């Protein structure tokens, strides 16, 4: 086999449900090792619990929508392709860009954190070269093949999740002493407004789980692998979030918002340190490191697929849509993640980068359920060829998810007003840019040829 490249857009179809799980959980689990605890700084333990339940409800619905849309369309672009097929080109390209930005900003943040952890372990190391090394290594792994990249993610994610389970069970079965009084003392330091403000950090527990469905084009049996793997991933995160909140709230004090759990950088690791049990400290340190690497690894995979899909439809240069004939990866789109991630990483504004990632994600969480509502209207009959997995209680739960996403976005006005305005303006400009660009390459959508589906219901009515 030669190393020649081809323009043929055929990605290898080898992934199984555990790869889908590994991609989804691998990207997100880092949020349970760090970041979620800002909910405690805003709203105390009760604020954090409410944020977990409200965001958890929204993400459960988003994951169900993504499972139905992913197993139906079987396309690598995920939210981009769903919006393209069921909403329109301008919205689709904006969502594609939002997904790209969401994951690439997260990759940059993860790489920086890995570098900081490495520096804490080995003080002679410098953050700049280690960050570069992490980004370059993960780009190379993803260039070589999606199976290797996601198998690696599976093992790293499994170890990190195992660490959370062991820590939780050790606490509940009395291996070390818990402090239930911390729950009461730090229950609600900022009153009812704190409960509401805490919602803005709720997405940290689950941010990015919808990306698991972006493996659909590379799955052996997407109509089984995507729903089975993605829902297993969602339950993993819900279980992990509850365990993390419980164990950290019982070990780190939170009665003063500016101290303790609410401002901890690595809350699970610091909670383990407070127990004084060496094996738990080592396990949680390893979990923190592995989950950052697996998150960055999954982000390279998802952001490159989104860019690949945008390129395939001429929204960005068609040069990025090449598939490597040997490794069958979108290698140019994969390589292109590197300079952008490096630019984000060295912008020097880690919190701004993460906030931009969250706003991009929330924009997707309005448009993914909307895509599903449109999909159900255009193809109301549940035939196997179109919709192999039918999510329950639709479209009502989609409306609920959109409402929650808008409420969470509105809470960003507390502290991140300018980030929110900047991000929304950015995507508005992107919408008009892509809308105009689409006119240049406009082609009709042949449902039979592209998707193997019958025409949607509004076509029939016209006829």
């Amino acid at each position, binding site marked *: 086999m030669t190393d020649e490249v081809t323009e043929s857009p055929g990605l290898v179809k080898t992934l199984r449900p555990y790869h889908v799980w590994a991609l989804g959980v691998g990207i997100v689990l880092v949020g349970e090792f760090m970041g979620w605890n800002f909910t405690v700084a805003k709203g105390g333990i009760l604020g954090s619990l409410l944020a977990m339940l409200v965001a958890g409800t929204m993400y459960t619905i988003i994951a*169900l929508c993504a499972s139905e849309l992913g197993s139906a369309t079987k396309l690598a672009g995920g939210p981009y392709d769903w919006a393209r097929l069921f909403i329109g080109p301008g919205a689709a390209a904006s969502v594609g860009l939002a997904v790209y930005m969401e994951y690439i900003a997260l990759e940059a943040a993860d790489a920086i954190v890995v570098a900081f952890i490495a520096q804490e372990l080995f003080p002679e190391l410098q953050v700049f070269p280690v960050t570069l090394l992490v980004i370059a290594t993960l780009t190379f792994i993803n260039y070589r093949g999606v199976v290797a990249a996601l198998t690696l993610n599976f093992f790293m994610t499994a170890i990190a999740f195992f660490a959370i389970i062991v820590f939780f069970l050790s606490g509940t079965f009395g291996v070390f002493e818990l402090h239930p009084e911390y*729950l009461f003392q730090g229950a609600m330091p900022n009153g009812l407004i704190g409960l509401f403000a805490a919602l803005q950090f709720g997405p940290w527990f689950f941010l990015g789980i919808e990306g698991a469905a972006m493996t659909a084009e590379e799955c052996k049996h997407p*109509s*089984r692998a995507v729903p*089975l793997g993605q*829902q297993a991933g969602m339950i993993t995160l819900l*279980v992990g979030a509850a365990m993390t909140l419980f164990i950290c709230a019982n070990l780190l004090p939170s009665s003063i918002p500016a101290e303790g759990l609410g401002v901890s950088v690595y809350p699970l690791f610091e909670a383990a340190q407070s127990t004084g049990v060496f094996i738990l400290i080592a396990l949680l340190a390893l979990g923190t490191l592995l989950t950052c690497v697996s998150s960055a690894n999954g982000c390279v995979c998802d952001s490159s697929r989104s860019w690949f899909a945008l390129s395939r439809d001429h929204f960005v240069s068609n040069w990025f849509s090449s598939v490597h004939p040997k490794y069958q990866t979108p290698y140019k789109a994969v390589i292109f993640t590197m300079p952008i991630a490096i630019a984000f990483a060295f912008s020097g504004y880690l919190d701004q980068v993460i906030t931009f990632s969250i706003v991009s994600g929330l924009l997707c969480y309005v448009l993914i359920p909307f895509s599903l509502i449109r999909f159900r209207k255009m193809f109301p009959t549940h035939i*196997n060829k179109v919709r*192999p997995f039918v999510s329950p209680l639709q479209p009502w739960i989609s409306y609920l998810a959109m409402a929650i996403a808008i409420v969470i976005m509105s809470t960003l006005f507390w502290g991140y007003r300018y980030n929110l305005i900047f991000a929304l303006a950015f995507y508005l400009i992107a919408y008009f840019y892509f809308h105009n660009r689409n006119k240049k390459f406009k082609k009709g959508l042949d449902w039979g040829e592209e998707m193997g589906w019958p025409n949607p219901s509004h076509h029939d009515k016209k006829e």
Partner: protein
Amino acid sequence: MDGVSETKYNKAFAKDTYLIVGAITLLIAVQGYVVFTVLSTAGSVVSPAIRAIYVVFFVLLVGIETMGYWQVRHSIKQHMFDFKYYD
């Protein structure tokens, strides 16, 4: 069911069912334990109306996920022979 071993398929489908039932049980047990423990310890600082919001979202979260994952099982059962899931 051309060339498909029904026994093999039923065994593989049973494994998927165990995974789904196990995951749902774990979800209900862990989320239920944590929400109940935190609310029973710290919930007295808020009014019963606010506590009801927690209960509503807990029921929504667990209920939707349980129905959704059970629907995944139904979908696999319905299509496993047509799409040759376990070959």
